[in-house]
């Protein structure tokens, strides 16, 4: 549906301050090459989510610029840019009462006319796309018309991923996509995102809390702390000491005391 290849994302001196005074991002400048699987690490409140939310316009930066393939993210360009961005959400962002089919079809809404959408009359081509995405995500044909609430957490996130890839976007944003899943499922879900992204060569920006998974999947790891980039490099360069620095020694001890 879309030409193959990923999007290049450039953050130029990006800052975001919330009205309550929180400085979520301070002067973040990054250059993310097309087709990279890029993992964002950092403690809660470090600005990972805000960075991702600035890309698809869910937050407006207080200062700085973001460019996707040389097009700046602005209120005027946002509508077109959003068609090329697939988002995977922490809490899946699915309508639990609606069917799996409708939730995935919703991913094609920007390419569907409003009247067709309201009547729920999607073209055969889009229906086939839904089927093939769900199949490669490992869902059963019998689950197509089930309510999302009847699925397990892992299956729900598979539906969320299928929705994100509906229009084969060149850029995928995943905001802690595995936060509520067990380690085995987490691995499977990240594999699914990586595999789907590879089919179109899409760029992936994925925030995570698990350092081991970040190392396993990332081409590049960027760590944030209090809105600043504190690490940027290849997975093999992320040493134990660096991890301890990112999360602070206290946080690390806390994690050891309470096994998750």
């Amino acid at each position, binding site marked *: 549906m879309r030409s193959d290849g990923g999007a290049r994302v450039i953050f130029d001196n990006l800052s975001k301050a919330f009205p309550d005074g929180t400085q979520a991002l301070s002067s973040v400048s990054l250059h993310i090459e097309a087709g990279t699987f890029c993992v964002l690490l950092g403690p809660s409140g470090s600005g990972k989510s805000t960075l991702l939310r600035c890309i698809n316009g*869910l937050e407006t930066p207080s200062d700085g610029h973001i460019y996707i393939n040389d097009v700046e993210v602005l209120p005027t360009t946002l509508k077109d840019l*959003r*068609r090329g961005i697939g988002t995977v959400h922490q809490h899946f*962002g699915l309508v639990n*009462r609606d069917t799996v089919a*409708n939730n995935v079809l*919703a991913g094609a809404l*920007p390419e*569907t006319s*409003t009247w067709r959408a309201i009547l729920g009359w999607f073209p055969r081509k889009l229906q086939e796309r839904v089927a093939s995405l769900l199949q490669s995500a490992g869902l059963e044909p019998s689950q197509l018309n089930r309510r999302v609430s009847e699925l397990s957490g892992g299956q729900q996130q598979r539906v969320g991923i299928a929705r994100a890839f509906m229009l084969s976007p060149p850029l995928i944003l995943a905001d802690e996509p595995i936060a509520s899943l067990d380690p085995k499922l987490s691995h499977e879900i990240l594999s699914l995102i990586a595999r789907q992204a590879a089919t179109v060569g899409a760029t992936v920006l994925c925030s995570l809390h698990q350092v081991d998974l970040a190392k396993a999947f990332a081409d590049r790891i960027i760590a944030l702390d209090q809105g600043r980039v504190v690490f940027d490099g290849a997975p093999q360069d992320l040493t134990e000491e660096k991890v301890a620095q990112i999360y602070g020694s206290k946080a690390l001890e806390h994690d050891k005391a309470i096994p998750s």
Partner: protein
Amino acid sequence: MMQTNPAKASSWVFRPLLTGKLLVWALLAILVLAWSGKATQMDRALALTGQAIGVGVTGKGDSQVANGFGQIARSLWPLQLETRTPIAQIEHFRADRLPPFSRVEHRKSTTQSHDPSTGKYVKTTQSASELVVPYGYVVTVLGKLIETLQIALWGTILSLLISIPLGFFGARNLMGDGIVVAAARTFVSFFRAVPELVSALFLVVAYGFGPIAGVIALGLHGAGFLGKFFADDSENADPKPQEALRALGANRLKLARYAVLPQVMPQFTAYTLYILDRNIRMATVIGLVGAGGIGQELKGRFDLYAYGHVATILIAIFLMVLLIDQLSVKLRRKLL
């Protein structure tokens, strides 16, 4: 963590059951109730009712209330079930084709009149034939009941048609916080503020007696309720799917259809059923001001002192409401 807490359990202070503030509020409430109870003659109501019960139990004494109820009961009986139509008024009457169980009665009626030329009273005897249908009035009432149900149904459909766009424009999660939301919510409040009985009074003047005024009156008032419920429910819906679809680039209508509607459908259905239920009961009431249905029939008979007819109508309404209640419980269970 528990063992490291230095405070003793006995030092935790719970909020007391009675506070000075609560006592002040209670005193205020008692004063307001005493004052308003006097204004609504609650003391007199208690005395009159007590007296009536006393008369009812002992059979002695006199009570205004008991007499009033007795008079009503006596005038309502017997129920009017049959219809009598003078055959002269029936077009193409055929004696061999009467409705089932019907009969023709010939009645001789004598009238006395004063003849001005002779200055004497003259008795004239007239013979009139009437078609008597023993269940005729029941059929009439049933027809009016069906009309009432139809008014309620179309009133509900009208309120849905009005309230769906109003609910959409009145929802801040879909329309932002601006003039559109304020305007939509003002309309909705206005519709809700005008009771259907009042708007029916005016609509009867505009559209004439009959069901049109009833349907519009119920439709507008119902829209006032549904518009508010729809908008509020939409605002209370889980924001996560809405954000997900907004990030995708879906417009407001698509957002409403795919992120909000599937979430709020059960509440929407429940409210619509409630409005339908309410409209069926209100449709009988607004008939009293001439807006069609069984209420109009009731008012007409009541004004003619035809209490036998009134009794039949009241029993019919009672049975209908009972039946609808049973049905709506079943429908609710099926749909929700």
